[in-house]
């Protein structure tokens, strides 16, 4: 048998080729090859050894450099390498259950934690067949390299995540921070309102207002005392903190709008209000401040797909304009937003949502019995 180790022929010319070890392919490519500029096998064999030796040297060198880089990276990860979107996904590092529908997830993504600002959101895909859902960033810890998401299990995806997303598991995709960060501005006295799924997302904004020197009044709404969470966290950054519950079991009895009325009655000089929550609540907040002419910001949560401005599914009506909430929002002037349009568009997939939920419930029930 003829000896053609490391040799191959292309267009009558002999080449040397060495396959690069898998771990070095990102630096060296799939293989190293060089033409020997001869069509004669004997001549090629003679020239081979030198080239092979050189290639081996390059591979050894690349390996050494890589090891060194690796050691360096472990000490101080480069921004382009930490928190990158590996196929393995994004690890959940902590979880807390506030009630049987509300849960907190902490996800490891150092770059995202570094970039996140109040008012922004992320898009999450929980598993390969999952949908892309937007979730507001409820908190971020730059030193730990984590972001916090607080999720309400309302539909199929969020309920499934409630079951699947345990500490140590991974989200299949996580991208952000998306949207334009909140304008903290120069407001002197601010009311920050959070209700339902908006309680957690209002927190980073409230903190930012406090840190910018404003007098901050927090107003948050829950159904009852059992569902209250983060009270201490809020109180740390609030000059006044008003909890509103439907049944009066904690704080005042009533809706967040009652809390706002109370705050406005005490402070005639409130110059800004920010509300995050269900559209119906944000609409009521905007109506409460409208007669007072207080600048009111709301954070909209339309149905999204990509979150990058590419599909227009997230379009909302603000004044007489159509805006894409994912790239031009999510925050808009509450007095200009067409909430009825938003609420109608949020019902767009209600029948499919129901179908998905039923299919999933049956499947999981089946799995539990089986």
């Amino acid at each position, binding site marked *: 048998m003829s000896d053609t180790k490391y040799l191959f022929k292309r267009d009558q010319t002999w080449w040397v080729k060495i396959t690069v070890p898998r771990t070095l392919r990102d630096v060296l490519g799939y293989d190293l090859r060089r033409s020997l500029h001869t069509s004669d096998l004997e001549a090629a064999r003679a020239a081979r050894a030198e080239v092979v030796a050189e290639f081996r040297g390059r591979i050894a060198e690349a390996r050494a450099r890589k090891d060194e880089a690796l050691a360096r990276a472990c000490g101080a990860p480069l921004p382009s390498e930490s928190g990158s979107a590996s196929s393995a996904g994004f690890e959940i590092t902590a979880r807390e259950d506030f009630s049987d529908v509300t849960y907190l997830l902490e996800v490891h993504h150092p770059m995202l934690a570094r970039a996140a600002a109040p008012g922004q959101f992320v898009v999450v895909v929980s598993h390969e067949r999952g949908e892309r859902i937007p979730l507001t960033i409820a908190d971020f810890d730059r030193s730990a390299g984590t972001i916090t998401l607080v999720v309400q299990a309302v539909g199929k995806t969020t309920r499934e995540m409630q079951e699947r997303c345990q500490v140590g598991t991974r989200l299949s995709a996580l*991208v952000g921070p998306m949207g334009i960060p909140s304008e903290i501005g120069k407001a002197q006295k601010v009311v920050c309102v959070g209700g339902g799924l908006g309680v957690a997302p209002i927190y980073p904004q409230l903190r930012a207002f406090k840190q910018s020197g404003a007098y901050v009044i927090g107003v948050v709404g829950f159904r009852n005392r059992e569902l209250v969470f983060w009270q201490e966290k809020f109180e740390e950054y609030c000059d006044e903190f008003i909890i509103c519950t439907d049944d009066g079991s904690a704080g005042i009895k009533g809706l967040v709008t009652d809390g706002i009325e109370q705050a406005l009655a005490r402070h005639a000089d409130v110059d800004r209000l920010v509300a995050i929550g269900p559209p119906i609540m944000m609409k009521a907040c905007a109506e409460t401040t409208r007669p007072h002419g207080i600048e009111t910001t709301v954070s909209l949560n339309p149905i999204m797909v990509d979150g990058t401005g590419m599909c227009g599914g997230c379009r909302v009506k603000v004044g007489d304009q159509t805006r894409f909430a994912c790239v031009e929002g999510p925050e808009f002037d509450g007095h200009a937003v067409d909430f009825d349009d938003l609420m109608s568009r949020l019902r767009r997939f209600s029948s499919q949502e129901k179908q998905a939920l039923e299919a999933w419930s049956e499947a999981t029930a089946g799995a539990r019995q089986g």
Partner: protein
Amino acid sequence: MAKKKTIRTIPQERTPIPVQDASLRVQNFSEVALGYGKEDALLEAERCLLCPDPACVKSCPVAIDIDRFIEKITEKDFRSSYDILTDANLLPAICGRVCPQEDQCEAVCPVGDTLEPVAIGRLERWVGDLALAEGWTSSPHIEPNGFRVAIVGSGPAGIACAADMAKAGCEVTVYEALHATGGVLRYGIPEFRLPNSVIDAEMESLTRLGVKIECNTLVGRLFTLEQMLDEMGFHAVFIGSGAGYPSFMGIPGESLHGVLSANELLTRCNLMRAGEFPKYDTPLDLGARVAVIGAGNTAMDAMRVSLRSGAEKVHCVYRRTRDESPAREEEIGHAEEEGVEFHWLTAPVEILADAEGNVSAMRCIRMELGEPDDSGRRRPIPIERSEYDFEIDTVVYAIGTNANPVIGQTSKLALNKWGYLEADEDLATSMAGVFAGGDIVTGAATVILAMGAGRKAARSMQVYLGIRDSESVYAPEHIGNEGKLFGIEIGERNFSRVRVQ
């Protein structure tokens, strides 16, 4: 050499491409045009006259040596044919499928003066597919030069630029906002026209060149361009973020249930696989009667995806005529065969709703063509009192897209008045070291133009970085650039970048 071919000696008929039967294919997402077999390709290649001064090469945006690759087919040297193709075009299997050949190379083919032009696109596709099947790659030996280059967006512009920079020896990272690569190739163009397996294979050849691909990374928001050039240590950046932002018309009824953009429809189906709902979580609310506004490639795709996703009747509403439609001729033909009803010279004026806020009908007005406008196309003018309604459940907008705003929002790059990135003839932007190309510069165009722009930007970047003779496979052993920029230590920041002509 064989006897010189003449128009009389070549096969007279264009070799037909086998296609799936229209009645069958509307029920599946498998590829419609099945592609040539080897015999078909050999026969069709014989039709090329091998003109001494081939017009087709000049009208190809990336100047593929069309005559040479076809000649190699006739010589049955398919591997060389592939090498010639990939010298100019990284993605022959893709471009052979989606390029508007009838307006480019095939439009100027002299054979087309008397007969049908040589089916250059089909031949390109055949060679590209053969290479994928055989596992051929044209990955050259790459000599690292120490430069780090970042690419924003993994659409055709981004990947073409990435490939060239990697071949030149740079360490290239591609950042993509979505969870999958390919840009419009993946989320827009459907499976039956461009199978995902083809995109995957082409991406694979990119990673084989050593290119790193990072999905789930929204550049501008996760880190800014300034950060990339500064703390992240990239020496140059290319932006190919596309023109994904869909337009609406601003007529009454656009926020009703059942009105969506073609991009949303296609993304739900292609990227998120809504067709397999509820196995896949993403739903799609498509009614039985769908009207698509517009008649470009996007519109054709939206219509044909609708037919395959359960729509019973699909209408196309376009304010000009078939002749002005910007779609590939083949796609219009396929849509017609599949039963799309075309309403040429028709424009919607209002979308009507039922009591629950769902779309129930569309009011349209008939148009006639007037004088040519700036684009040279005759301007459509509404015919007074010609309004009529027709019943519909879903309205899909495919009337074009605008610039994606994210990069503009998060950087100081100069934009033009429509929001596209400002770039000079070398595709350099207003920020030193940052180049841009593809739809984000030109507005929505074509795959091949985006690729051409990516390659052009790569050449400019190489000049900017001072990389010489980048095409050469045999770079000198050590050019001493590691850790240095123009021979100056990177750590030393007391010099400013200049652009080299």
